[in-house]
């Protein structure tokens, strides 16, 4: 029985999560107690350890909030507020999600187009490929807020500017993956199609595209996570307009740590579920195409 427990994924994962939670609670006590002890001494209050623990776990603006405080804030801002209210995290997550998805769609499309061009034209490959790679060593996220501000000055606000940043981040993995994927077909298959005198279009749709699909989905999983990061960072300077990034920034301005953590958790859940969604789509399409997954 013990051996089977040792080998189970669920047991390992839940043990790890439990350990992390314990560390979290100890860390919260440790980080928050400094502030509290200072306060006690200033007001000349006698304090003992149990009181310190109780206070450390129920501070208004703790240095590190406990998971149950974050959970309470999450519950309050998801279920107890109307969805169209500015206090609702669902409202902010919706804003972030819309620009993430638009940017992801644009980036995926651009990535695929670039890859198709690169695979079919040697000059394009030689001239574009080095810059596609270089483009990612440029910390575009760092200038994302600037792009937003500049476009905002042009009266060009809303979803699109943020989506452009998401697009820039998400096209790269798609291009790299698809160039690899479109070149993945077996040499024998390519020669078979050549003996059928298939033209480039037929070769593309009947052989290159299907064999590139596994690569496409692997890339799309990376791309959608990157698109979410782009959308969130793009929201940092647009404080008033909402979105998870704006929520992070306002939380940091007003020292609302619980609010920051709640927004972070929502972002994490959003990211994980978007990646999982692409995974589900991948399995469906694989099944329809007869690839056993």
């Amino acid at each position: 029985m013990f051996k089977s427990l040792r080998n189970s994924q669920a047991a390992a994962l839940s043990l790890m999560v439990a350990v992390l939670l314990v560390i979290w609670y100890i860390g919260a006590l440790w980080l928050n107690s400094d502030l509290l002890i200072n306060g006690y001494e200033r007001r000349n209050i006698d304090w003992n350890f149990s009181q310190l623990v109780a206070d450390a776990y129920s501070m208004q603006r703790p240095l590190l909030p406990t998971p149950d405080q974050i959970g309470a804030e999450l519950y309050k801002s998801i279920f107890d507020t109307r969805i169209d209210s500015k206090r609702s995290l669902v409202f902010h997550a919706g804003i972030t999600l819309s620009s993430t998805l638009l940017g992801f769609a644009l980036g995926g499309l651009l990535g695929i187009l670039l890859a198709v061009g690169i695979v079919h034209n040697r000059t394009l490959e030689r001239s574009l490929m080095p810059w596609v790679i270089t483009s990612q060593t440029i910390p575009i996220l760092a200038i994302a807020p600037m792009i937003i501000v500049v476009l905002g000055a042009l009266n060009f606000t809303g979803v699109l500017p943020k989506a452009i940043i998401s697009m820039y981040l998400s096209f790269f993995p798609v291009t790299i993956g698809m160039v690899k994927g479109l070149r993945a077909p077996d040499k024998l298959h390519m020669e078979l199609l050549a003996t059928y005198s298939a033209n480039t279009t037929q070769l593309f749709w009947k052989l290159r595209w299907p064999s590139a699909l596994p690569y496409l989905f692997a890339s799309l999983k990376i791309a959608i996570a990157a698109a979410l990061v782009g959308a969130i960072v793009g929201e940092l300077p647009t404080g008033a307009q909402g979105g998870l990034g704006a929520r992070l920034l306002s939380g940091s301005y007003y020292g609302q740590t619980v609010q920051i953590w709640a927004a972070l958790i929502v972002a994490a859940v959003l990211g994980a579920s978007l990646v999982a969604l692409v995974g589900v789509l991948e399995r469906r399409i694989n099944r329809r195409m007869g690839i056993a997954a």
Partner: protein
Amino acid sequence: MNTLALNRLLIIAAGALSLILSLFITAADGAIYQQQPIWLALIPLLLLGGWFAMSLLTDLGEQAAPGLARRALNLAVPALFAGLLLALWQLIVTGFGVPQVLLPAPSTIGATFFAQLQTLAQDFAQTWLKAVLAGWLIGCGSGFIVALLIDRSPFLQKGLLPIGNIMSSIPIVGIAPIMVMWFGFDWESKAAVVVVMTFFPMLVNTLAGLHASDHLHLNLLHTYAGNRRQTLWYVQLPAALPFIFNALKLNSTLALIGAIVAEFFGTPIVGMGFRISTEVGRMNMDMVWATILVAALAGSISYGLLALLERKLTFWHPSTRSAG
């Protein structure tokens, strides 16, 4: 055949000529394209010339014997492409009189870059030499060490790997405000963000690399009665190097992003993120773009150096060998 080559050269020459002419016209007279749109006709011509030049260089590069000439030709194609892009940017910005605030011309950015070299160097020292380097070293180092420690424990791996994978889909830059709150405004908080951002990619990649060693090689070490340390040093680590370098390169970009974004949440009055956010506020776009140029150079150069080191250390790997 010969006439075809001659035609090609003619088109390239026409493209080069129209490029020079366009640059000359736009430099002499601001917003010329709005007054005399006829000059716009030169732009397709120069693009066509550029395209023909690039395809000519590609062909030459493929025909050339392997060696210095071939390498130079292969570099010339992307260089020409970038030059063309820059020229187009310059022409459109000066030709249409695009306001400075919106998009400065490359020539303006270059001038600002050299004029403000000292400020830019201070920002670079604050952000890159302190926060990025320290965070990158600590993050990659601890990720590597933890991977070595849990390599032999399937139980810990089963617990940590899913967490590592989930972390890769989470926007970790979001912890920046929290880190600023914990570690203060100076570079330590930025380094902390970088540590968290770089730790998990390194952990996941190193673990994957340690498992990538050939079974035959492991068995061989076993027959030599190699102990754990020797197995690690002679078989597992060399096999893991490509994976480790992948993570190092990925992290070098992530680290720069993390440090700059963290500076948006509070800094002393120096640093690249600080410079970007304040100069945007003052609408000094040329300075912003000069800072971006520094960031781009820093990112590309560190990536390039790591790639070079990878080539030196993994000379045996197929992907390095095939590149010649």
